[in-house]
């Protein structure tokens, strides 16, 4: 087992963040003063909400009837045979309403917004899954919804853009910078600076200023809790290894968090290795980055020596981000979670393999975790259990994959 730094000995790894939003040295709140009061208000509203049985029961009711929770754990029989090692299971977040785990967070935050009396919602989106999940929650509650999306992502994830519009959301393409997720977050933050008194920003991952990383992690932790319950009833024990893909890191945080105090379970986060380990060729800050500040919190980030955010690349729009949630940086440095990366090519191969072996079309984001899982399973024993967080479905990626392979 890996070691834990001295300052956390005797304290559970799950006992974070502190009152300043710190996960070890990571996290915090680096935002313009204009947003400080809104973040304090959000923190207070969240603490009150989770202590309110009515809020919890409303959210659980929505999880059951609107999202379709609990999501099942599927034994990937043919993939297991092909790998020839550990038993591979999929935690089926792809079966959630809107096709990914993102809805867990947007429903929770939409309920919070209503508690705070805010009827206008803004969000950023990369792959479009968070945008769709936000538009869906807003439609459900009758909230106004504006989604910022990099114009490059509008192009490669057009099915999701259509869905958002059908749900009544306004999609604003962002033309600045790299025209991807990072720029969409910048624009959403700017909107929020001017609209903070009437608007709630539903951030889509475990990133951003305190208290967002904690709130998003908590709403997503239903993934890990259900996985624990299901494993206990199916196997009478916890799984040996749990793996999830990491962009901003919300599905991984939600899956890992309930396991962090269970040292017998190996946790592995898989970043986007892109085309190569060269600068600008990948989107893997935990693998290649350094601690720095981006979008309001301190975490591993890809920056140049001056501190300018580096260009990143991933075939997957949802992982195409130069930063990562601060709790992942904490887990990385504490040694609790192992982080690695998988290339575009390996993720595309895994996409094909899982589609053809299991009849499940995984999201390109998820395909990164699957690529690692198949390889790892082959080196494990048959009695061992490996769970992959199947964070989202891949329908949205079918056209982009065809384009990449030159048969549009």
């Amino acid at each position, binding site marked *: 087992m890996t070691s834990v730094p001295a300052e956390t000995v005797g304290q559970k790894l799950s006992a974070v963040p502190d009152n300043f939003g710190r996960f070890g040295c990571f996290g915090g709140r680096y*935002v313009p*003063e204009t947003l400080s009061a809104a973040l304090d208000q959000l923190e207070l509203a969240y603490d009150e909400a989770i202590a309110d049985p009515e809020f919890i029961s409303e959210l659980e009711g929505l999880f059951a009837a609107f999202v379709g929770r609990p999501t099942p754990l599927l034994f990937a029989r043919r993939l297991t045979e092909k790998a020839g090692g550990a038993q591979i299971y999929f935690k089926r977040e792809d079966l959630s309403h809107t096709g990914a785990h993102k809805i867990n967070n947007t429903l929770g935050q939409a309920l919070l917004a209503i508690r705070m009396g805010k009827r206008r919602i803004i969000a950023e989106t990369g792959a479009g899954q968070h945008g769709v999940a936000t538009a869906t929650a807003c439609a459900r509650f009758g909230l106004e919804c504006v989604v910022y999306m990099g114009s490059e992502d509008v192009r490669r994830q057009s099915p999701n853009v259509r869905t958002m519009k059908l749900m009544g959301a306004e999609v604003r393409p962002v033309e600045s910078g790299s025209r991807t997720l990072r720029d969409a977050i910048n624009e959403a933050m700017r909107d929020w600076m001017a609209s903070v008194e009437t608007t709630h920003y539903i951030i889509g991952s475990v990133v951003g200023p305190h208290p967002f990383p904690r709130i998003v992690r908590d709403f997503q932790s239903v993934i890990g809790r259900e996985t624990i319950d299901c494993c206990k009833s199916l196997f009478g024990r916890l799984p040996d290894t749990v793996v999830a893909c990491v962009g901003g890191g919300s599905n991984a945080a939600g899956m890992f968090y309930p396991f962090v105090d269970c040292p017998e379970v190996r946790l592995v986060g898989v970043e986007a290795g892109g085309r190569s380990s060269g600068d600008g060729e990948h989107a893997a800050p935990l693998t290649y980055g*350094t601690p720095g*500040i981006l979008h309001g919190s301190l975490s591993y980030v890809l920056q140049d020596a001056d501190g300018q955010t580096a260009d990143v690349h991933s075939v997957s729009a949802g992982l195409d981000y130069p930063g990562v949630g601060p709790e992942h940086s904490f887990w990385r440095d504490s040694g609790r979670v192992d982080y690695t990366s998988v290339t575009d090519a390996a993720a595309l191969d895994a996409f094909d393999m899982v589609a053809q072996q299991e009849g499940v079309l995984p999201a390109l984001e998820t395909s990164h975790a699957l690529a690692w899982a198949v390889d790892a399973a082959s080196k494990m024993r048959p009695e061992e259990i490996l769970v992959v967080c199947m964070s989202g479905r891949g329908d949205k990626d079918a056209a982009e994959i065809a384009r990449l392979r030159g048969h549009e």
Partner: protein
Amino acid sequence: MTAKDGKKKNGIELLEDAFALCKTESRRAVAPFVTAGDPDSKSTSAILESICAAGATCCELGVPYSDPIADGPVIQASYTRALNAGMTLTKMFDVVAAFSKSHSMPLLAMASYSLIFRNGIEAFVKRGQESGLAGFVVPDLPLEESDELDTQCRLAGLALVRLVTPTTPPERAREIARRSTGFLYCVSVSGVTGERTALPENLVERIQWLREESDVPILVGFGISTAEQAREVAAVADGVIVGSAVVRCIEKAEGGKSMSDAAGGFVRELVGACRLN
């Protein structure tokens, strides 16, 4: 610049002198904002010369950053132009060093904390001090996260100008006002930097209240784009900060000397509008 006893003045003292001179001359401070390296270092040096000659009290030098969440489209675009043209921190400090050697107009770096943190807080402040900067404005660093930079600035005698916004609750505004050095930056409106046609109605009351809480001059910024607006603000505050309108003025000029002429001309107008009686 050195004092009579030969001791070099620190950044805070340079700012105090500049504000004292305004008082003596019966006018309010004018603090233009210029993006370092937009469109290149040489132009920035010429623009600084020009706005200094036009009577600017001090100047905020915007340090280009790739992800400026507090800035509106005009300043954001100027950062992108500067970075695309190869602006770096080293070049920015070189511009400051060359200017401060021969001018008393204090320069403040408006820098994202992302850049400061990446370079090391102590190291960044030291580079600022050595180059002759008078202080820093860090738009994405709230009170709670600022202790280390505050300490380093105090040790170096550099100002750490803090911002109060319309959304800041009174107790918090009091604490920010108390801890701001050099001057206090009163943000006129909620939102990002940029020009606006009208000033908010409650601005006068906010400034009067802040004045009770603060020992340093109060400068108002965000949204001031014309000499007429500057005159209105100057009637109630110790000075004005004009950013996007100056940057746009440089952007619209046709390069070369026309940029520094345009910026200087605009600042001269603002200085004129901020004369009392």
